[in-house]
C-alpha cells in the first residue's frame, strides 16, 4: 500500500480550480520530488494530504486512511509547510515545546532535533530575529519531532544557502534510506534533481508526469550520428530495438534513441562503418521540465 495517496483529488475555490482530478501514490524508502511551477497546486495537494483542507472531490489518504483518522498524527506525518508559520514572539525551543506537549513527545527529543538542524545555539531566541534559513530549519525540526514515518515538505530549500541545501539533501536521503516516505515539493527542478528518486510533475492542478529522473530525461536524449553507410547502420540499429530516423539536415545524419553512444560506436565498429560525427543530444533537465510544465500544450 502506498503511504501517501491522492485519488481523483479536486479542490476548487469559487471558480478557480487549484487541483483538478489529480491521482498519484507515493512509496516509502525513497525521496519523491513534487514539482510544478508556482500556482500549480502543490501546496493545496499537500495541505489536503495533511487534513488542513477538505477536498472538493476525491480523496487524500495517509497510510490508506483520511488524515483526520490518524491515531498518532505527529508520529505518522511530519510536515514543514511554510517557513513563516511561527509566532514571532515565541522562541524556537518553545515552538517545539508546544508541539511536543500536544503529541506527548519527551522533552529530550526537542534538544535532539534542534541539534539535527543545528539550531541549538539560537533556540532560546525569539523567532522574530531568525533568518529565513533558520526558520526553514526550525520548520524541519518541527517536522522531525515525532520521528514520523512520512515527511511532507513544501519548498524546504527556499532561503537555504548552498551548504544548507547540501545538508538538506543528505538529511532527506538519510530519512528515505531508513525506510521513511519523503515527499518534497519545489518549483525548481535543479533543487530536487540530485535528491529525488522519483518525480511527480503537475501543472494547472493536473498530473503531467510521474517517473524516475532517468525516465523523465532519458526519454528525451538522443544520438545524432553521421557515417559512411547510414542505411546499413539504421537497419542494424532498428534490429537492436533502437529508434531511428533520418535527421532533416540534408547531410544524411541519423537520429537514434534508446541506445547510448558507446553501444552505437561498438556496433558501427562491428559493422565496419566509419563514423564521421557522433553527438549526444541531451535534453537538459530544465528543458524537459519546462517542456512538461510550459505554457504551450504538448500536442
Amino acid at each position: 500500500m502506498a503511504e501517501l495517496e491522492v485519488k481523483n483529488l479536486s479542490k476548487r475555490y469559487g471558480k478557480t480550480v487549484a487541483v483538478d482530478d489529480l491521482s498519484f501514490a507515493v512509496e516509502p524508502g525513497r525521496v519523491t520530488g513534487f514539482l510544478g511551477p508556482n500556482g500549480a497546486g502543490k501546496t493545496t495537494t499537500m495541505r489536503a494530504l495533511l487534513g488542513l483542507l477538505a477536498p472538493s472531490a476525491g480523496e487524500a489518504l495517509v497510510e490508506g486512511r483520511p488524515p483526520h483518522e490518524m491515531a498518532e498524527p505527529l508520529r505518522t506525518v511530519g510536515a514543514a509547510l511554510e517557513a513563516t508559520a511561527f509566532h514571532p514572539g515565541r522562541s524556537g525551543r518553545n515552538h517545539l515545546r508546544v508541539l511536543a506537549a500536544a503529541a506527548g513527545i519527551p522533552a529530550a527529543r526537542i534538544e535532539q532535533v534542534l541539534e539535527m538542524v543545528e539550531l541549538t545555539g539560537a533556540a532560546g531566541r525569539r523567532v522574530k530575529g531568525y533568518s529565513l534559513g533558520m526558520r526553514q530549519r526550525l520548520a524541519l525540526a518541527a517536522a522531525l519531532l515525532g520521528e514520523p514515518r512520512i515527511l511532507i515538505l513544501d519548498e524546504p530549500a527556499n532561503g537555504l544557502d548552498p551548504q544548507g541545501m547540501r545538508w538538506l539533501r543528505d538529511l532527506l536521503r538519510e530519512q528515505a534510506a531508513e525506510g521513511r516516505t519523503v515527499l518534497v515539493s519545489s518549483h525548481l527542478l535543479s533543487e530536487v534533481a540530485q535528491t529525488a528518486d522519483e518525480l511527480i510533475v503537475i501543472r494547472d492542478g493536473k498530473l503531467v508526469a510521474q517517473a524516475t529522473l532517468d525516465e523523465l530525461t532519458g526519454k528525451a536524449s538522443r544520438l545524432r550520428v553521421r557515417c559512411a553507410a547510414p542505411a546499413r547502420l539504421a537497419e542494424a540499429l532498428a534490429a537492436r530495438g533502437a529508434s531511428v530516423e533520418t535527421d532533416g539536415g540534408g547531410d544524411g545524419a541519423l537520429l537514434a534513441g534508446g541506445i547510448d553512444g558507446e553501444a552505437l560506436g561498438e556496433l558501427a565498429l562491428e559493422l565496419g562503418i566509419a563514423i564521421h560525427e557522433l553527438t549526444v543530444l541531451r535534453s537538459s533537465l530544465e528543458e524537459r521540465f519546462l517542456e512538461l510544465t510550459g505554457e504551450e500544450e504538448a500536442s
Partner: protein
Amino acid sequence: MRLLRSEAIKLRSVRTTWTMLGIGLLGEALFAGLYVGLASLGEIGSVLDVQTGTGLLMVMLLVLGVLSITTEFRHGTASTTFLATPRRHPVLVAKLVAALGIGLLTGLAFVAVNGGLALTLFSSRGGELPTTGDIASVYAGVVVSFSLLAAFGLGVGAIVRNQVGTIIAALAFFFILSPLPELLPGTIGDYFPAQAIGSLHSLPEATEDGLGQVAGGLVLAAWSLGLWAVGTALVMRRDLSE
C-alpha cells in the same frame, strides 16, 4: 491533558500575556489605592460597589482570549496545531479550559491585590467593611466574570479569525455599544453580556436593577459558551490554506 499543557505553554511563552496581565494588575492596584485612599468615605459608600480597577483587567482578559485563537491564524501556527490534532475540536476544548483557567488565576490575583489594598486602606481610614459573606460573593462574581470574559474573547476570535477586527468588535461591543440594550423594553436588556457582568459584580440580593448575581453569571456563561460552540463548529469546517 496533553493539549491543555500545550495551550498553557503557548500562553506562557509569549511576552504579551505577561505584559497585559502585569499592566492590568498594576493599573488595578493604582486605581484601588488612589480611589480608596483619596476619595471621601462618603463618596466610596460600600467599598464593594467600586469594583476598583476591574475594568482594565476585564479588557486584558477579553483580548487575551481573542489572541489565544487569532494569533494562530495570523501567524499560521494553526496549521501546525491542527497537524498535531487533525480532529481539531479537542484543541478548541483545551483553549476553552485554558481561557477559563487564566481568568481564574487572574481573578485570584485581583482578589489578593484588591483585598490586600482596597479593603485594608478602607478600613484603616475608618470605613465600615461589608460582611465576609458579601465580600466573598462579590469577589467570586469577579473571578467568574474574568474567566467567562476570556472564554467570550476566544469564541468571538474563533468566529471572526481576523485579529484586529475581532479585538475592535469585542471592545466596541462591551465598551461602546453596551448601554444600548438598556434602551430595550422590559428586562430584555438584562440578558446582554455587559449587563450580565454588572449583575455578576453586584451583591446577590441586589436585584432591583438587573438580574441577580447567579442569574447574571448564567447569562454570561450562556453567551460565552454559545459563541465558543459556534466558533468551534466554524473552525472544524474551515480550510487552512495559508
